[in-house]
């Protein structure tokens, strides 16, 4: 059968228009509609929020400056805190114009292109491993010890990072080169909220003086029937000890009326725990709820959406403050171990309970060892760190709820976590040993990173 040309043309035209209309509809439709344009798998850093194209692209057909602004919106503060060794300002100086012609490091996407799994390596890097060579080709003149080192070993050998070298710079290696493997008797930070609450700019101390409250002091609307077990959990909690009663969380004042909310959200927690909630929203557990970054609130993160192995019974649970801390018990100790292991099912997590760290944790929990001597999941992944106020006028030992901050690259964990109890060399070696990470640090590192040896030779040329 012969089909004439005009029929074919018309069919082609109609099909083209239909496809274009469909794509335009998806482009300007709901956020989830836009997922049809996803050009490839999103990295593990962003996969939870991939349906919100505008979180990074800000809008259809936006330029890379707008996208850079989006990157910085979420990551700039962390880079600054990490004393980024390659800040954007280094590359906006015209004297480096020839360098940015080769690698335009003013933009995050120069090294971290999303949706390109076929060229994505560790840390979501999408450029060849020899990139350092582009600017540092003459390093052997400055550091003769680096003569002959392979051009792709700068970062892969455990010696340098592009952004965060706070635990790896030469003078730091020298200062800690003789530290023992284990520094017995050291303690992690413990909470100091009670001591500094008065100085915290946003802590509502007037409404909630830090004095214990009792069940008898609590008042409820008539229609509220309080379960006895709830009251028991609360009365044993740190909240009751710190003056946080039922109404503190459940009663919301609006002008002259006070209404009762059954399930207070993170905004209520943030009244006293602003930093913790902000950390939660910045990390893997809470980023889907980060309205400031996404422009909308997605459903909470759930183990069913995770890429890491998760326990089957937990797949339908959802992450919010209460899911880890318990709605009324607010037990930070169970939140530091049991809550994690309730969902996480990878080998590293499963090995924790047989690890020396867990034995220390048990000793602390049973009262046989001092506070701060136990090592929980949170000790490493959500550590208490000193948060500066007013340029160090006082510090809050705040639990960092953004678990990515100490994780990728894992050398970021060395200073805030490992070095509290371990020598620098031991920590560098341990974190470079995949088998040791796998068994949750049961044993000694079988890997030896040379960085401290090289630094030592510079200051003690004849010694080894």
């Amino acid at each position: 059968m012969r089909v004439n040309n005009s029929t074919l043309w018309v069919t082609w035209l109609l099909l083209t228009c239909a496809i274009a209309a469909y794509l335009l509809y998806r482009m300007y439709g709901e956020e989830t509609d836009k997922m049809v344009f996803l050009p490839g798998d999103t990295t593990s850093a962003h996969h939870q929020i991939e349906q919100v194209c505008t979180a990074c692209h800000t809008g259809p057909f936006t330029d890379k400056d707008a996208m850079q602004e989006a990157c910085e919106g979420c990551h700039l503060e962390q880079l600054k805190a990490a004393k980024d060794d390659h800040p954007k300002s280094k590359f906006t100086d015209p004297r480096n114009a020839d360098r940015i012609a080769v690698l335009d490091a003013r933009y995050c996407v120069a090294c971290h292109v999303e949706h390109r799994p076929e060229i994505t390596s560790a840390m979501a890097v999408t450029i060849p491993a020899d990139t350092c060579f582009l600017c540092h080709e003459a390093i052997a003149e400055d550091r003769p010890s680096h003569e002959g080192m392979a051009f792709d070993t700068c970062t892969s050998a455990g010696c340098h990072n592009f952004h965060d070298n706070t635990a790896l710079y030469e003078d730091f290696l020298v200062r800690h080169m003789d530290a023992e493997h284990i520094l017995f008797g050291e303690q992690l930070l413990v909470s100091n909220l009670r001591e500094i609450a008065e100085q915290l700019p946003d802590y509502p101390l007037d409404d909630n003086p830090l004095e214990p409250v009792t069940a008898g002091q609590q008042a409820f609307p008539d229609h509220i029937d309080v379960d006895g077990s709830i009251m028991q959990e609360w009365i044993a909690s740190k909240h009751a000890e710190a003056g946080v009663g039922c109404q503190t969380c459940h009663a919301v004042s609006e002008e002259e009326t006070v209404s009762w909310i059954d399930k207070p959200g993170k905004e209520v927690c943030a009244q006293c725990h602003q930093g913790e909630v902000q950390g939660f929203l910045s990390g893997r557990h809470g980023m889907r709820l980060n309205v400031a970054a996404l422009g909308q609130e997605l459903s909470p993160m759930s183990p069913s959406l995770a890429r890491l192995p998760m326990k089957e019974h937990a797949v339908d649970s959802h992450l919010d403050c209460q899911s880890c801390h318990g709605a009324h018990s607010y037990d930070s100790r169970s939140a530091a171990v049991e809550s994690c292991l309730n969902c996480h099912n990878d080998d590293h997590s499963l090995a924790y309970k047989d690890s020396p760290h867990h034995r220390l944790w048990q000793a602390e929990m049973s009262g046989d060892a001092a506070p701060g001597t136990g090592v929980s999941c949170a000790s490493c992944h959500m550590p208490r760190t000193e948060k500066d106020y007013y340029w160090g006028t006082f510090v809050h030992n705040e639990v960092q709820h953004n678990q990515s901050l100490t994780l990728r690259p894992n050398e970021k964990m060395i200073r805030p976590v490992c070095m509290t109890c371990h020598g620098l060399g031991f920590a560098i070696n341990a974190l470079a040993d995949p088998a040791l990470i796998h068994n949750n640090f049961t044993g000694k590192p079988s890997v030896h990173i040379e960085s401290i040896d090289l630094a030592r030779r510079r200051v003690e040329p004849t010694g080894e």
Partner: protein
Amino acid sequence: MKKLRNLTLALTASAAVGLSSLAHSQADEPVFTPQQMTDWLHLVMASDRTVYTRMIVNRLANKEKVIKASEHFEDEKALVLPAQMFRFGAEMVGEQTDDFTYSLLSEWPINKQNAPRTEAEKEGLTFVAENKGENYYTTEELGGKTYFTAVYADTAVAPACVTCHNDHKDTPRSDFKIGDVMGGVVIRVPL
């Protein structure tokens, strides 16, 4: 001869910017040349840094010996080095404007990334080291843009400058004396 060439370049650049500014401004508004602008900027930079070096670092670290100055000032609970104070300021300026940039460079840098890279930087640093009291002005093209580039000598103003640079394990030169030109401040204005 070189000085004459520099002067010609500076005048040409100044005239170019002056004319273009004039075209966009009211006739009775003052018009500044890029050289005036960089000279004034440098005066502020050099004065602030000299004050910091003499009255804070040298006094507290060398004279009264109550605190040291260190590149790793946070880890060592020390004062920020004068060169770092200068660089941090330059980075902060870079985050806020493209109207000018500045950097501290040297033919004898402790950090080799601060060695001169462009022809203007190389010529300028040599010129100010060899011609004490004189500045170097030129125009250069970088990344497709033309810049008015000024280089000013950076001189050792206090014992702290000299001892720190001479004794540093990464220094390529260890015979600096007070008053020596140790490097240069490079200021660029896009034309």
